[in-house]
């Protein structure tokens, strides 16, 4: 099921468990399935004498439940006892053990995780063992918010990040864009100052997939927190790095976004030789991103020095984008064209009030 926040960072539809058709009705009560429990070793909590002191607490949705989930008897039994423990805030080993069962049934239940953390501290449990436990769970369910939060808490309590970078690298090797993994990685690096080898890690991943936007983001994260981009040497190194990646893979929005990102507040049109390099690339390595970058360069130039020739070039590129190279965004490029004309064109010089966006063109809009 794909819920709890945005789709990409929560459980995927494809990971839904199949309906269990193996339950067998024996003498009025349902047994767990043959496949996972062939010798019928599983006993419900309600039948275990060590739990007889506890009164199970069922869920109570009242007379008209909405979005009711039909739990199996096993599931309900575990959670009825979880609710019972919760009510009395019991601090015991049996409670701790039960949280693991509850988590296995639903690892997205944040109350279970919170209660488990309370018990970890109250019972002084072995946190190294907990690290092993949470490692396994994240490997199984890497897009669940609660498991990553739990890991962060344990790492903080241990004050030991030494396993993190390797662990996250492993998760990323399975899904190089897992947002939770990158978020945890940034937290660990920033909290424990583990910057030293991260640029190397970034370069390795960019070699594997130069279009991985998460890795470009990480590049910016590392550099902005270490050397920064103020020094001309670093800035130039990064600009050249970008252009080299673009030569290898021209149709890559991530590289162009990075290039624009590091230059946009430092004067896109003033970086020595850049415009020329981009115009050269336009002949052999053109893309909508290159052309958009050109427009932005021209716009930057116009802001500093409004020249008719520059404006014309900008308008031409917008036209080229709208009509040929990025037609899905045709209306946007035409809008941008009108906007540039309005800001820098002849009517701007006359001192008349600027219209911000002319009327949208006829056609396409509003089906109703």
């Amino acid at each position, binding site marked *: *099921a*794909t*819920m709890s*926040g*945005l*789709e*990409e960072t929560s459980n995927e*539809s*494809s990971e*839904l*468990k199949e*309906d*269990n058709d193996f339950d067998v009705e024996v003498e009025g009560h349902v047994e767990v399935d043959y496949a996972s429990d062939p010798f019928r070793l599983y006993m419900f909590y309600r039948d275990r004498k060590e739990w007889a002191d506890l009164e199970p607490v069922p*869920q*109570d949705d*009242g007379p*008209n439940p*909405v*979005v*009711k*989930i039909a*739990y199996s008897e096993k*599931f309900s039994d575990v959670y009825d006892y979880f*609710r019972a423990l*919760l*009510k009395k805030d019991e601090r015991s080993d049996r409670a701790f053990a039960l949280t693991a069962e509850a988590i296995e*049934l639903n690892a*997205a*239940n*944040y*109350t279970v995780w*919170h209660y488990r953390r309370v018990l970890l501290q109250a019972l002084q449990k072995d946190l190294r063992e907990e690290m092993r436990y949470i490692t396994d769970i994240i490997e199984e369910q890497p897009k669940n*918010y609660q498991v990553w939060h739990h890991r962060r808490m344990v790492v903080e309590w241990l004050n030991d990040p030494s396993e993190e970078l390797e662990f996250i690298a492993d998760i990323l090797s399975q899904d190089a864009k897992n*947002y939770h993994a*990158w*978020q945890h990685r*940034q937290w660990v690096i920033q909290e424990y100052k583990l910057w030293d080898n991260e640029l190397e890690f970034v370069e390795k991943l960019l070699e594997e997939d130069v*279009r991985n*936007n998460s890795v470009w*983001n990480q590049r*910016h*994260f590392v550099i*902005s927190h270490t050397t920064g981009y103020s020094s001309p040497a670093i800035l130039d190194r990064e600009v050249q790095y970008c252009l080299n990646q673009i030569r290898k893979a021209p149709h890559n*929005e*991530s590289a162009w*976004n*990075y290039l624009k990102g590091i230059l*946009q507040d430092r004067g896109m049109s003033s970086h020595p030789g850049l415009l020329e390099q981009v115009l050269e690339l336009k002949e052999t390595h053109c893309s909508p991103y290159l052309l*958009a970058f050109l427009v932005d360069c021209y716009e930057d130039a116009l802001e500093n020095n409004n020249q008719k020739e520059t404006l014309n070039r900008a308008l031409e590129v917008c036209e080229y984008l709208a009509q040929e190279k990025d037609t*899905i*965004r045709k*209306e946007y490029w*035409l809008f941008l064209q009108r906007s540039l004309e309005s800001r820098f064109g002849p009517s701007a010089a006359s001192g008349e009030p600027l219209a911000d*966006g002319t009327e*949208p063109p006829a*056609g*396409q809009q*509003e*089906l*109703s």
Partner: protein
Amino acid sequence: MLSPLQLEEFEQIDFLRDRHVRFFQRTLQVLPERYASLETTRLTVMFFAVSGLDVLDALDVIDRNNMIEWIYSLQVLPTEDQSNLSRCGFRGSSHIGIPYSVKGPGVLHPYDSGHVAMTYTGLTSLLILGDDLSRVNKQACLAGLKALQLEDGSFCAVPEGSENDIRFIYCAACICYMLDDWSGMDIQKAIEYIRGSMSYDNGFGQGAGLESHGGWTFCAIASLCLMGRLEEALSQRELDRIRRWCIMRQQSGFHGRPNKPVDTCYSFWVGATLELLDVFQYTNYEKNRNYILSTQDRLVGGFAKWPDSHPDPLHAYLGLCGLSLIGEPNLRKVHPALNITQRAFQHLQQLQQTWRDNAGTCT
């Protein structure tokens, strides 16, 4: 306006309204055990279904009053001694085991507290169902909300602690907006966190330094709009850059991050953001519509993130909202910041007018 010929071409993929109505009806009834991971967020699932039915103008198929009662049973109310005020709000479900009750005082329980996303979807669901929020303890909700905001301006989801990020700022902004009371949050700090989440590429990440993403960009912009601070928090230059980042997300439908595959839900997250920034009109409606409809499940109804994938309530709802944004016939218009129909929004506005008129006689 489209010409009749264009309309005809558009309608080639047909929109199966009745299937979607039934999809949401089934969602509101019983889900199989494999949906267990949704237990603590059942209220949000209800919101998707109920708001989805509203967009379809099909709320008449459900029993509104029964649903309203169920939502109120999820309210965490103050106990007799009011010692739990900072934990008030709405629960996602009955999973903690509190006995069913629609009125106070609250029950003292060591682990019972509201969840910011449930308070948000609880309130919106009540509004959509036509409730007047008179049984909502607004002051308690706001106290619970306040307790969730951190020094850096972001919010946690629950008072026991959780991850903190821009999603919960959005939930908080919706709550304050609906209750017409911003005392539940420090707006300035929230704005600072939002600004700090802006990436070098001009989209917004979940927090500072994180990769920009369509969902978080929606949370950022929609929050600022609800606060009425969009142009105060962001310069015209920044807004233009954000517009560019968003509009580049369209591939056919929309994706959430550069170089990622498209996904139906981003037709709303990014589409609504573009609408709030006044440039949705410059997107390609036909390609967007074709993509969304390619993810329609013709058998069971609903929409999935990709074609030939299982539909789910979130994508079903946001797919509809995506279609509503482009003006699909027979779908209600959606308020792009609050993510409810304009009809439900008008109901809210009327309620708020009543509250202002009655100011002095508080609940």
